[in-house]
């Protein structure tokens, strides 16, 4: 009797959940895979062409900064260097600061787009995660990019629409096309620990938490 009652309880409880609760869509589950990659990786390299034809490169590293002027606590931040000309940006919880030693607030849409185009993992992960939490629309479709079969992850509304191209299964980002005006396709690839160290050294005045700048 014991086995029958306990087995029945387990079977019924499982069956009720399976039958009565909705399941997430395949796109949502794929998007979670992408989100997991973005949460777990800290360095991404990018290459894209500016409208005037210049070749731009970027490296984005997710590290810690502060306490410094304008950022009073030690917080996670996206540290981005791109150029030429060499430009340094810091993203903290959706706020953007320009500079690598003395920060100043930057509210330009171009700087905002730069974080996405550079494939900053936590920046992109934050946006994709917010869309998933709010049950926003995320579509994941298989497409051909160059000669590669990849998955295209589309999320965000018109003005902030992002197309992220990832390797299906491994969910490694390979390219991105980001708003506000979807321009060039940026090629992405995971960065190396050496690049992470280089970026950390570059941002040393703020990553070491010096104050009184």
């Amino acid at each position: 009797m014991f086995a029958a009652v306990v087995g029945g309880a387990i079977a019924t409880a499982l069956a009720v959940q399976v039958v009565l609760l909705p399941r997430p869509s395949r796109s949502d589950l794929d998007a979670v895979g992408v989100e997991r990659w973005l949460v777990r990786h800290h360095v991404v390299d990018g290459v894209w062409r500016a409208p005037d034809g210049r070749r731009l490169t970027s490296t984005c590293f997710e590290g810690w900064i502060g306490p410094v002027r304008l950022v009073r606590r030690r917080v996670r931040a996206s540290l981005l260097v791109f150029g030429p000309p060499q430009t340094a940006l810091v993203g903290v919880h959706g706020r953007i600061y320009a500079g690598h030693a003395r920060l100043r607030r930057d509210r330009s849409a171009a700087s905002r787009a730069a974080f996405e185009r550079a494939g900053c993992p936590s920046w992109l992960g934050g946006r994709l995660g917010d869309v998933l939490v709010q049950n926003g629309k995320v579509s994941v479709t298989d497409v051909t990019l160059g000669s590669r079969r990849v998955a295209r992850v589309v999320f965000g509304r018109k003005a902030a629409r992002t197309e992220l191209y990832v390797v299906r299964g491994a969910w490694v980002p390979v390219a991105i096309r980001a708003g506000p005006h979807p321009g060039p396709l940026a090629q992405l690839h995971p960065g190396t620990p050496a690049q992470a160290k280089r970026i950390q050294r570059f941002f040393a005045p703020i990553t070491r938490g010096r104050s009184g700048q």
Partner: protein
Amino acid sequence: MSARRPYLLVAGWAAFTRLVVIVTALGMHLAGGPHGLVGRRTLHQTIGVLGTWDGAWYRNVAQHGYLLIPGHQSDPAFFPLYPILLRALHAVGLPYVAGGVLISNLVFVVAIVGFYELGRELLPEELGFRGALVAAAFPAGFAYSMLYPESVVLAALVLALLLALRGWWIASAVAGSIAALGRPEAALFVIPVAALVYARWRRLPAAEQGEALSAVVAPAASAATFPLYLSWTLHNVYAWSWAERAWGRSFKLDGIVRAFTGLPSLIGQNHWLIRDVVFAAVYLVLLFVAWRVGVGLAWVVAGMLVVVLPLTSGSFVSDARFGLFALPAYWGLAALTRRRLILVAVLLLSLALLVGGTLSIPFTYP
């Protein structure tokens, strides 16, 4: 006093306390405030304030199912019974918030009547009666009226314990399994059931021993099906614990120490935490009183674990609400209100605090 009168009194009082909470919520809607952190849109809905905080997550699960979102707070932290109920109510045409608040409040009245009956089984009738009255008006109990599973779990839990006391083991196993699908701490009350089975073991016929054991094991087994379900739907058997971690709840033995050492800085960030600390202390004192007036040790231990185990996550956050399931604490409070005047004073104070608690919903989660 006729045999039915105490039941009607308890049911009427429980219904009145729910009316107090709902009228307060309605008043907030009509006054348009205080809107605190929940925003004016929530108060724009008639009883919107009762559907906030975790209620929004339960509604989300009912509408869309579970999704574990790495690096974000996500819904696999919420057990499935209540979303299943919300979905069922929605299927018959009731909006999620209205249906949920309706069922929470109706079931609460049944739960309190059941709690009175449970008290009568274990303690002198007077103590059981007063226990039901103070439980119905308990200040942290405004959460029973919200879009939270608390009242449904309380009802299932009380029923499971009552059935076990009466030796209806299989029915107790079923009710206990339902409670454990609503909130994991419901499974802690297998401790008094196990003590009961142990005490009666030699007198039980052999055929009944298996049934009695099933009443002890089935709730935990039922709770364990939730990670299994998440493993099937999200391909991640750890989805529940990972989601709990994102909510700041990773359970470690040294968490209790951290809950105390981190208290000053946490209170600095969130003054409402004082409320949880005070309630945790009150629960523990009342559990001690309950033990002194003759409530079984197994019951008191289960109640104590309900209060103390959440602290292993390193924080007192929401312990006022978690402690609502420390059932013997209500008997402890009942023991302190033997004099009619004190009972009336406690009930009036409880009602005032119940209103205050409801008014606090926009500012902090229960």
